[in-house]
């Protein structure tokens, strides 16, 4: 039985929609604070250096994926050069530390800004491209960087009889200093410094991503992603938005690259390998492309399964491949979409 809609009913629905939006925001804040609180107190239980290190790594990868998701999932620009941007940040800090003894606290900013600029250039290059051509162009950029650095064996700097190429070549760069937590907090507490630094960076990236997705920017991106022509004819300026999202996401990705370099005290072009790309891609896909919580949830799931499958050798990569294919084929909205649908169904049932 359908009854004709009365104005008051219309009003009711508008209020209801407003309420759902406010509830959504409340839920986001609640989940966020819960997670953050949990992450703050985990070190108190003393889980050991290994777990702390792995969670720090989770912060780095979740941060990278959060920023990648802004470009890839929300804006729908399928860039595969994310790890190249990450390396711009990491290498800048590493090179400045290696050749100039620059402290990480300063070089981090320069690395992040350069990564943002590199990202803007990539974003500008992909402006006119669509779909698979974007992927091909960005992959070509990443592979070109990788090939040029890996084959760089010309001696640039000598340390005794040892010769170092400018970029470190296939071995990458080492011995370039770090954030100095060891001098600051002592050997025992140093991992905690990196842990909390990673947590803060991930939190800032996530808040930034949420604001972008929720703001008119996010709506503009979704409009451009879903129907570029229609969006353009409604006066949405693609150039402005695309440059902006690439710049900001590149900045935060570069910061994550610096954090990685400072955490592992080494950085190299092995970061551009396809295995790592799939690993990060699976986080984004499993979590849910373009969803707000996708990168964090996907990051947790993939990092935990990675830990569980540690002993399984090649089966581990096979499993990640199968998971990625399964989610992209059958569950395109990822676990977040799945949870969302389940929640909606439950609410509808209980309200009827």
């Amino acid at each position, binding site marked *: 039985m359908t009854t004709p809609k009365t104005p008051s009913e219309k009003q009711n629905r508008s209020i209801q929609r407003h309420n759902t939006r406010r509830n959504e925001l409340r839920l986001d804040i609640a989940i966020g604070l819960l997670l953050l609180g949990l992450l703050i107190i985990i070190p108190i239980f003393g889980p050991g250096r290994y777990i702390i290190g792995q969670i720090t790594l989770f912060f780095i990868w979740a941060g990278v994926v959060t920023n990648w998701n802004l470009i890839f999932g929300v804006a729908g620009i399928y860039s595969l050069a994310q790890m190249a941007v990450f390396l711009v940040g990491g290498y800048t800090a590493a090179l400045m530390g290696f050749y100039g003894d620059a402290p990480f606290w300063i070089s981090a900013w320069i690395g992040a800004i350069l990564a943002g600029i590199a990202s803007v250039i990539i974003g500008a*290059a992909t402006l006119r491209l669509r779909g*698979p*051509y974007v992927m091909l162009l960005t992959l*070509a950029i990443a592979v070109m960087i990788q090939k040029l650095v890996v084959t760089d064996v010309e001696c640039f700097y000598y340390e005794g009889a040892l010769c170092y190429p400018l970029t470190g070549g296939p071995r990458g760069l080492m011995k370039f200093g770090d954030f100095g937590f060891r001098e600051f907090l002592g050997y025992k507490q140093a991992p905690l410094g990196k842990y909390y630094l990673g947590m803060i960076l991930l939190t800032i990236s996530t808040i930034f991503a949420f604001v972008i997705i929720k703001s008119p920017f996010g709506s503009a991106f979704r409009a451009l992603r879903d129907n570029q*022509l229609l969006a353009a004819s409604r006066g949405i300026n693609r150039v402005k938005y695309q440059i902006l999202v690439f710049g900001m996401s590149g900045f935060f990705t570069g910061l994550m690259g610096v954090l990685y370099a400072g955490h592992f005290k080494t950085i190299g072009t092995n970061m551009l390998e396809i295995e790592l790309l799939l690993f990060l891609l699976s986080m984004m896909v499993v979590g849910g492309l373009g969803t707000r919580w996708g990168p964090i949830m996907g990051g947790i799931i993939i990092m935990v399964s990675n830990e569980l499958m540690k002993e399984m050798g*090649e089966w581990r990569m*096979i499993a990640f491949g*199968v998971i990625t*294919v399964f989610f*992209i084929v059958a569950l395109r909205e990822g676990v977040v979409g799945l949870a969302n649908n389940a929640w909606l169904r439950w609410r509808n049932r209980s309200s009827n």
Partner: protein
Amino acid sequence: MTGFLVVFESGLSQGAIYAAAAIALAMVWGAMGMLNMAQGAFLAVGGYASFAVVSTLGFPWWMGLPAAIIVGAFIGACLYYSTVKWMYRAPSYDTNIVIATVGVAIVVENGLLKIFTAYAKRQPFHVDGGILLDTVTLRYQTLINTAVALILMLVVAWLLNRTRTGTAIRAVSLDREAAELMGVSVQKIYLQSMVIAGAIAGASGVLLTSVIPMSPYVGHDALLKAAIICVIAGLGNIPAAFAAAFILAWVETSVSFLAGARFGFPALLLLVIIVLLWRPYGLFGRSQGGRV
């Protein structure tokens, strides 16, 4: 003169491989709008199929090629049933399929790693010796590979232009809905395209591994080079892809010869970046326009 001959010979040798790899990629990309990132893994599968049949099971060396073609066709069908069949109607299929095929590539490569180990194998489909031209040897292998690539190109061109299946494939690639309304079964056409492309990829894998050592990751660079060729030559035009493969191989070997080996591949990558910046749908591609 010697320099020219060196570049000519190694360019011919590379070009034959790129051409074979590019044919299958161009066909699937043109017919199904699918950039198949698993193509590189398929090349490796072809190489290992030949290795398994000849070196492990003891068949004569030339049996490697038909074995690779059969296994390649089979894995093409597997790719269709595992991904394409469920995806091609969904929105943003053209990009999601790239993600899916990256996943498939990782699965296949690590599967090969598990079965055959990372230790580099020697391709049994291999002929030693050659003709001495001035100071440079024109290897028999290069001639065989060029001939096989040429045959593959002609077969595919014939299939696409002279057979009913080919007509249907072209119709689907032009306008899927219209072709479906005319009674073409899109699913069948996609399956057939994948099987043909898989078979060609298997054969090109044998050619590829006859020149460079076989490993599960052997197809990575070849895949990217094939994609570059497709962008330069345009999609669906198989003879153009064939010609572009040799031209680009000569460009690459010339750059390697003149500027140093490490700049050969990056030069090609730079070339494709420039081409895409200048012509976003490839050198001969057309803008699809768009519907509002």
